[in-house]
């Protein structure tokens, strides 16, 4: 008789890890949002956080809540989608865009750009400002996507606290801004609203990087500080999605701690500015 060997894949797991796996399985089946390949440590912290603020004692209890109460699921969606962002975040990155990427884009008659994981829009408007200053905005179509409808709504509204403008102005100057940052918004009480001219060529759309498909024929894909929340295999899959969405010679821009160096897709890209994670799909 052959004794079946114990498969290492089914070695006993930490009960909480099992519960979180079941929770994400349930969320996927019930709502179609797939968190199964998100980074586990991060996901567990967010779940624990939700349990504390909602006074829930176990992950199983949380699972029950989430499956039967759609509004509770939307709370969890906010917990799991980290929306921190700013204008001209990492100004040197945007300076590199201006100096290394814009000159290439200038050679195209028409430009398509995809911001994936755009959150509340700050990154998109930063890019629109650069395109405007470089005389490219009117021949660019920008697609800005996120899987969280609430942040997309804020991105569309383009209203930001005036208290942040000091930092953003500093970032704008460091990123090589050619004008005065205050030209791009109108201030009212304690808020500012970005000027209409920046928005005209932007389409905001709901898109889930895990479950939705490619956006074709992009000249530039920008996806910053989103892949870090995914596990390695999901990162690889999503980089594949970007590869399929880019034209040859198209640019891929990632966050400062993200890279494709260890991805199986690496061989299809060449670095443009390694330090700022700007790559180009090889010809």
């Amino acid at each position, binding site marked *: 008789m052959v004794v079946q060997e114990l498969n290492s894949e089914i070695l006993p797991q930490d009960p909480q890890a099992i519960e979180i796996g079941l929770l994400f399985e349930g969320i996927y089946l019930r709502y179609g949002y797939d968190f199964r390949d998100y*980074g*586990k*440590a*991060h996901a567990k912290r*967010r779940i624990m956080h939700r349990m504390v603020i909602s006074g829930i004692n176990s992950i199983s209890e949380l699972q029950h809540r989430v499956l039967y109460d759609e509004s509770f699921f939307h709370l969890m969606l906010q917990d799991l989608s980290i929306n921190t962002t700013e204008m001209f975040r990492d100004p040197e990155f945007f300076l590199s865009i201006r100096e290394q990427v814009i000159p290439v884009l200038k050679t195209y008659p028409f430009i398509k750009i995809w911001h994936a994981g755009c959150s509340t829009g700050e990154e998109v408007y930063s890019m629109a400002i650069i395109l405007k200053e470089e005389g490219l905005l009117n021949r660019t179509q920008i697609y800005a996507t996120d899987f969280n409808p609430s942040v997309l709504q804020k991105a569309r509204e383009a209203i930001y606290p005036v208290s942040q403008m000091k930092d953003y102005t500093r970032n704008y100057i460091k990123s090589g801004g050619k004008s005065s940052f205050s030209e791009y918004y109108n201030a009212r009480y304690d808020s500012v609203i970005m000027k209409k001219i920046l928005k005209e060529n932007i389409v905001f759309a709901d898109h889930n990087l895990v479950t939705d498909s490619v956006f074709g024929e992009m000249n530039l894909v920008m996806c910053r500080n989103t892949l870090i929340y995914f596990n390695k295999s999901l990162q690889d899959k999503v980089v594949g999605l970007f590869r399929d969405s880019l034209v040859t010679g198209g640019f891929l821009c990632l966050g400062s*701690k993200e890279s494709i160096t260890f991805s199986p897709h690496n061989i299809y890209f060449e670095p443009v500015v390694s330090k700022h994670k700007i790559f180009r799909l090889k010809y």
Partner: protein
Amino acid sequence: MLTGANIPYDAIVIGASAGGLDALGVFLPMLEAGLPVPILIVQHISATSDSFIITYFDRMCKLKVKEAEEKEILEPGCVYFAPPDYHLLVEADKSISLSNEEKVNYSRPSIDVLFETASWAYGNRLIGIILTGANWDGAAGCELIKKGGGLIIVQDPKTASISRMPESVIERFKPDYVLPLQEIGPLINKIFNSTPTQ
């Protein structure tokens, strides 16, 4: 040097804030080469600081010192610093995740985030160390490590340049060791049976 199954712990996490760079400058060079476990450090630091401290510590230490990178697998004998403006997390498979979610205890990187996730990953096979600092980040994380059966070492507040952080741990529970800075390095060497290499 202990190896394999004889190693009593699998990782060391360290938290430090104000005064921490000086304290680490004393502590880290005392550690012997060939430490059989990784060390992960959150030093509170400004969001825009450069990588100078990494180069500086790498030159001073017998262990390899580097900035923690997204998804890298932790190696024994290596010291990993959280990058400025990112939380440092440990995954169950002993790899690193970074995150720029909101600040915790007004801090990013936060000591509690590292200690909490390291405690999930390593359970009772973890040592947590708190050095000098002016706030209470790390205290909750230490308690979690302690509850999970890990070992907690705290710099003696009397010898810390700022005593608040070590005190905030001692106020919550009794750490396994409360030691002057100079004695923490030798204790770690003793725990792992590291003898000076010639």
